[in-house]
């Protein structure tokens, strides 16, 4: 930190990720509003607290082991190699606290590495952590009004600090084994956040079952309308807003793409933003594609849902998610068309799965995130067929089969399966679902009683004054 220009690059990078974290906080604000709006009056407070308390629980566990997993599990481990040493990411590392970067106290770190991680570790950790919150929050909406909060928080830690970060190590890291061997490309996390979270939600829902009253005796579904559609729509707008931070956080802001042993070209420098795979891209490119895929999704959802506000807003989100895997490279019109196509498919699929398998996904999270993310990864395999997956030599190129296998790993292997197993365990211990009578009258029954008693008390006091 003694050279003005190199210090500026480091401090700009530090500030860049910090800003993305602030933006991404809005995703969680949006999810909380959305969930409360979608839930019924009688379960509002518990719904809100269920989502809110995942913040501290995922945060501390991501500190304890999530961050280490990201660096340590890039080889599987034992799929293509052993565990990788990650001394800067252990919870006992000095670099996980306030550090000036001056002394390399741990043997595995060079002086340069120490100086770098001293500045970047916290903000980079936080950017990944906010993705963890998002993954857990996606699941939260689908299970409202019948899951025990204690069970949900265990599941939230599982997806937020274990499953998703394993998939990030495998497929959303410059040296992950899926990138090396499958040519997996998922620049803005269609699969690594959305497909896995949707798959995870489905795994929980299969065991948890539908809300009481959701299905008639003949098996046809009833509509349980959002309690407050305005809160739902504002919540989704906030998620859109936070999504900007999410997109920007997926980039590395400034790097010499001829440096760091990436491209073996002597005496050349080219400074650019890159995606997480260290491939050059621009904020302009992803801004164009974000807005065009959002628009494609909104337009298709409006048509297919006959102007239903809930599905139109959700369709905008699904449009972005469907194009995200390749939004670093797509043409904007391609992004728009992919967004629109994905929305038509996931809308139809949601209602087909609901009728056929009696899956009660209260907010459509499995469709909007899971199916859209899955499709987004697969479509990128065809659209970007033959592109290099990395600037490094020897990595597999992007292919439809590599992407398809990657989508299966995200949705089923790391999403559905762990959720199903953990839900089965919790269910067998009677810890997954709230008691039937409480579900019928609402989780807030005691709060309601207290509110009525307080109102009565106040009324009597006012009468006494007159």
């Amino acid at each position, binding site marked *: 930190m003694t050279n003005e220009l190199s210090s500026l690059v480091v401090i700009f990078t530090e500030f860049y990720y910090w800003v993305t974290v602030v933006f991404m906080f809005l995703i969680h604000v949006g999810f909380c509003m959305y969930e409360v709006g979608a839930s019924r*009056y009688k379960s509002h407070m518990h719904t809100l607290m269920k989502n809110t308390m995942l913040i501290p629980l995922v945060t501390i566990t991501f500190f*304890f082991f999530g961050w280490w997993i990201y660096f340590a599990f890039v080889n599987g481990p034992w799929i293509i190699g052993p565990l990788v040493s990650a001394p800067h990411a252990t919870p006992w590392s000095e670099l996980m606290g306030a*550090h000036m970067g001056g002394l390399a106290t741990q043997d595995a770190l060079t002086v340069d590495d120490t100086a770098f991680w001293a500045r970047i570790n916290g903000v980079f950790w936080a950017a990944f952590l906010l993705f963890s919150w998002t993954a857990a929050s996606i699941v939260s909406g689908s299970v409202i009004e019948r899951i025990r909060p204690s069970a949900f928080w265990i599941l939230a830690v599982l997806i937020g600090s274990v499953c998703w970060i394993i998939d990030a190590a495998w497929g959303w890291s410059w040296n992950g084994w899926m990138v090396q061997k499958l040519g997996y490309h998922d620049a803005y996390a269609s699969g690594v956040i959305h497909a896995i979270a949707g798959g995870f939600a489905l795994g929980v829902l299969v065991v948890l079952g539908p809300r009481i009253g959701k299905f008639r005796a003949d098996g046809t579904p009833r509509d349980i309308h959002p309690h407050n559609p305005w809160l739902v729509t504002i919540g989704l707008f906030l998620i859109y807003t936070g999504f900007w931070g999410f997109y920007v956080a997926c980039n590395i802001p400034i790097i010499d793409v001829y440096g760091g042993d990436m491209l073996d070209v002597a005496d050349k420098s080219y400074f650019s933003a890159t995606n997480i795979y260290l491939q050059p891209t621009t904020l302009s490119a992803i801004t164009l594609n974000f807005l065009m895929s959002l628009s494609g999704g909104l337009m298709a959802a409006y048509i297919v849902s006959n102007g239903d506000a809930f599905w139109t807003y959700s369709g905008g989100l699904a449009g972005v998610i469907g194009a995200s895997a390749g939004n670093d490279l797509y043409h904007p019109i391609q992004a728009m068309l992919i967004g629109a196509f994905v929305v038509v498919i996931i809308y139809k699929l949601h209602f087909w799965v609901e009728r056929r398998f009696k899956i009660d996904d209260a907010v459509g999270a499995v469709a909007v995130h899971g199916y859209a993310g899955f499709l987004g990864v697969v479509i990128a395999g065809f659209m970007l067929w033959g592109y290099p997956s990395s600037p490094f030599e020897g990595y597999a190129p992007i292919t439809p089969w590599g992407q398809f296998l990657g989508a299966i790993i995200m949705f089923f292997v790391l999403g559905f399966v762990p959720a199903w197993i953990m839900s089965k365990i919790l269910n067998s211990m009677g810890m997954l679902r709230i008691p039937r009578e409480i579900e019928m009258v609402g989780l807030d029954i005691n709060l309601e009683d207290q509110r009525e008693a307080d109102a009565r008390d106040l009324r009597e006091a006012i009468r006494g004054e007159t």
Partner: protein
Amino acid sequence: MATGMVDNWVNVDAFGPIYPFVGTEVLLTFLGLAFWIIWHIWQIKEESAEFAKDLEGINKKGGVGNILDSESKRETSDMTGG
């Protein structure tokens, strides 16, 4: 008495960790993990007690049916601002 390794800012370019009690990181990790696990255990117990209390309250009010009768009226009133 000093809790940290910083006693001046003259040599800041050579400083490593600047938080107090450097060297206790492993102990802090164990304390943090214990706090996390104990929180879950405590919360599960509290939740079970809350549900037991809820079920008792439902019975006192004459069962689920009685409570549900007033629910739709309240929900509609809240949605319409009535």
